[in-house]
């Protein structure tokens, strides 16, 4: 099950904890992977670790021209894009009343607008081949909200609405569009929490632990597979029971 031999996947934010785990999971099932991110050294290290079928595609998603060029670069490197994983994201947390325009704009632009442009960019090939998987990494806070994260939550909720709309447009062409919504996962983002914050957080998670990147990656693999061809427009929550939505 979940064999991806011959499929080509573009993963953004591949140097992050979740992005790297996603790339490894897809690659382990036989997919070629295009590793996109801003930190070239880390991309090269990941590609070297994976060996064959791994391609380094540096791209700063804050740069509109670079976003526009990325699908073509990935197609040149791998031949085609069957699976797009919109994983790259950043936070610029601030209380709503103090949030600056650029904090809002940066988060919406990198997290949501780039996902729109990349999804649009890969559609042509997927439509022609009558097969495609677009998976966007959203967040539990896109559904629940979170104080201090008005911009981030808006971008993640936006991904869900965007995915549901696109899913309806192209379901008849064999392309599924879904979201995976992690809760609290052990990454650089959650490492920044202090002990008090961490303890309060664990109280709210029935599973009693933070998630691993692999917990998220396995769900991406599931939605990327042939076996989930009839699942589209959905958001799969991966949060240890922290929110049951």
């Amino acid at each position, binding site marked *: 099950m979940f064999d991806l031999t011959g499929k080509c996947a573009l993963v953004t934010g591949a140097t992050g904890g979740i992005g790297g785990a996603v790339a490894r999971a897809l690659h382990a099932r036989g997919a070629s992977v295009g590793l996109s991110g801003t930190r070239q050294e880390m991309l090269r290290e990941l590609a070297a670790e994976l060996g064959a079928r791994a391609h380094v595609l540096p791209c700063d998603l804050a740069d509109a021209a670079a976003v526009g060029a990325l699908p073509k670069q990935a197609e040149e490197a791998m031949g085609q894009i069957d699976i797009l994983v919109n994983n790259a994201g950043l936070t610029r947390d601030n209380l709503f009343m103090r949030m600056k325009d650029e904090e809002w704009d940066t988060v919406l632009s990198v997290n949501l607008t780039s996902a729109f442009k990349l999804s649009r960019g890969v559609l042509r090939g997927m439509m022609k081949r009558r097969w495609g998987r677009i998976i966007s990494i959203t967040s539990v806070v896109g559904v629940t909200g979170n104080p201090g994260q008005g911009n981030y939550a808006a971008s993640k909720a936006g991904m869900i609405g965007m995915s549901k709309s696109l899913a309806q*447009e192209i379901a*008849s062409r064999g392309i599924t569009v879904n979201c995976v919504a992690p809760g609290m996962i052990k990454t650089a983002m959650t490492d920044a929490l202090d002990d008090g914050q961490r303890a309060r957080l664990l109280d709210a998670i029935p599973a009693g632990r933070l998630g691993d990147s692999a917990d998220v990656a396995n769900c991406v693999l599931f939605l990327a597979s042939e076996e989930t061809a009839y699942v589209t427009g959905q958001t799969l929550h991966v949060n240890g029971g922290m929110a049951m939505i």
Partner: protein
Amino acid sequence: MSDIAATVKKIVIEHLGVEAEKVVEGASFIDDLGADSLDTVELVMAFEEEFGVEIPDDAAENIQTVQDAINFLKSAKS
């Protein structure tokens, strides 16, 4: 019939899965040939590939009949 017209009709027949005799010049993709809006986008993609031209979005919106497509491609190729 010009080569362009014949090729356009061939693409329409293949893509929309309609009978050849229905694909007359005046036929509207949506009203007469049962295409939906996504089919028309795919038709434009197929024209672009077959004829090696780029069809900008504003021109694509005006290609609603077989004749519209033939006209656009004739002028693009001339």
